[in-house]
């Protein structure tokens, strides 16, 4: 793969039972680029994210993270690659039996040799970055939807990943909170040059953050290009998704 690419999928297919979710999907994302995965519900967008971080294994094809073919990795090697990737889940996926602070501190305690004081500083900085400094001792159940997403984002960024995978970051949020989440993602991209792959149904968000759109339709990559390139695409589903019609 090209050394400029942060992520590259080559002919990736995945099925669950008899349900073919992805079929021969190939695309790459350059370092520091933001790509939005668009498509109707159930077309394999979230599955694509989980394949990239190897939560699922493809039935065929290759997935490269930098120079590592992640589908071939196991154990410590896989962990090493995963630490370069942050994942913001749709629901935030905070661990509900521990506080927001401990949600962020857990991976640092388990996977690094940092002192308690260093961990405290990192957690505090990460929570301040997402404007959640006051929620540090709260349990996830006490947080609103937007706060949960921001806490999830802070946790995803705790290792300062070079790649950030984001699954519907603004779904179910009011426009102001959604805009704040987008600001955080944009800031991450601009200041840290983080590669972003964002699954979204929100066209406003996609146009604001995405350099390119990848449109999935019935498990296949229907289109890949800049928003301008896709506006007059021959595939009607692509046009409707890009126009929002």
């Amino acid at each position: 793969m090209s050394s400029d690419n942060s992520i590259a999928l080559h002919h990736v297919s995945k099925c669950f039972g008899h349900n073919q979710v992805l079929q021969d999907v190939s695309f790459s994302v350059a370092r520091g680029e933001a790509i939005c995965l668009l498509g109707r519900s159930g077309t394999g967008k979230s599955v694509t994210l989980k394949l990239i971080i190897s939560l699922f294994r493809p039935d065929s094809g290759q997935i490269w993270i930098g120079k590592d073919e992640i589908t071939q990795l196991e154990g410590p090697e896989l962990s090493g690659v995963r630490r370069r990737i942050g994942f913001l889940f749709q629901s935030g996926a905070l661990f509900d039996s521990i506080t927001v602070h401990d949600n962020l501190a857990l991976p640092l305690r388990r996977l690094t040799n940092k002192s308690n004081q260093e961990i405290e500083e990192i957690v505090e900085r990460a929570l301040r970055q997402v404007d959640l400094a006051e929620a540090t001792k709260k349990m996830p159940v006490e947080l609103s939807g937007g706060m949960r997403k921001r806490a999830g984002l802070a946790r995803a960024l705790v290792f300062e990943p070079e790649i950030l995978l984001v699954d519907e970051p603004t779904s179910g949020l009011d426009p102001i909170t959604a805009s704040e989440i987008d600001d955080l993602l944009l800031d991450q991209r601009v200041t840290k040059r983080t590669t972003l792959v964002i699954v979204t149904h929100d066209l406003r968000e996609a146009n604001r953050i995405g350099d390119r759109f990848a449109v999935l339709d019935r498990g296949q990559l229907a289109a890949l290009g800049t928003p301008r390139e896709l506006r007059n695409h021959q595939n009607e589903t692509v046009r409707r998704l890009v126009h929002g019609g």
Partner: protein
Amino acid sequence: MRRILDFVGAGVLFGLKVTAAAFQMPFELDQIWRHIGELGARSLGLVASCGLALGVVMTLHTRSTLIMFGATGMSPKLQSLGFFVEIGPLVAALLLAGRVGASIGAVLADMRATEQIDALEALSIDSFKLLVVPRVLACVLVLPLLTTFMDCCGIFGGYLSENVLSHISPSLYIARAFANVDWSNFVPPTLKTTIFGFIIGTISCFFGYTTNEGAEGVGRAATNSVVVSSLLVILADVILVKIIFLIFPGSAI
């Protein structure tokens, strides 16, 4: 038939994976300790009340029979042997399966449904080692303790019942309860509950950790955890009793 064999195979592999992971660093001692506290605290009241009630009832039932043979003095010994050998281990295990098995199954299934387990993996944290192994080990360690506690409560319940009926003194009751009772009557049956604990922990974690049915799977995992682990505990008991008799022939009553 194939589905059953698939299930058995997956369950056995899961159990082997737990066993292998239990001997690998890190040992998650703080997690094990936390779960022992939780499991113990959740089950203690239930075990105590059941032990006490069973002790009272068993004395009432056996006493009427013993009177026919003029052997009411045997009642305390019958009580202690009954609890040490079978009632304590089996009932404590079934109570743990009902109280804790359902909880473990539901918690892990909920974590799966809400992507918390995926989040752990995405953070490079071994979710199996963190969530499954400490829970299974906690069940293994806590069940012999609960069994011993149940034995004590059962004998105490028997004493209360006997005291009401015959005004027996505590010292005489204890002396009769432990007369000619050997360690082999207590230790092997109590230690067999480590295997019951392993079965309950493994089966409950298996159903919770491996579910992929979303919210619906949470309820199913809880129910299956209780039903299957209770069934397997009873089946294992049959086998283990036979093995104990082979190894400790003197423990056969």
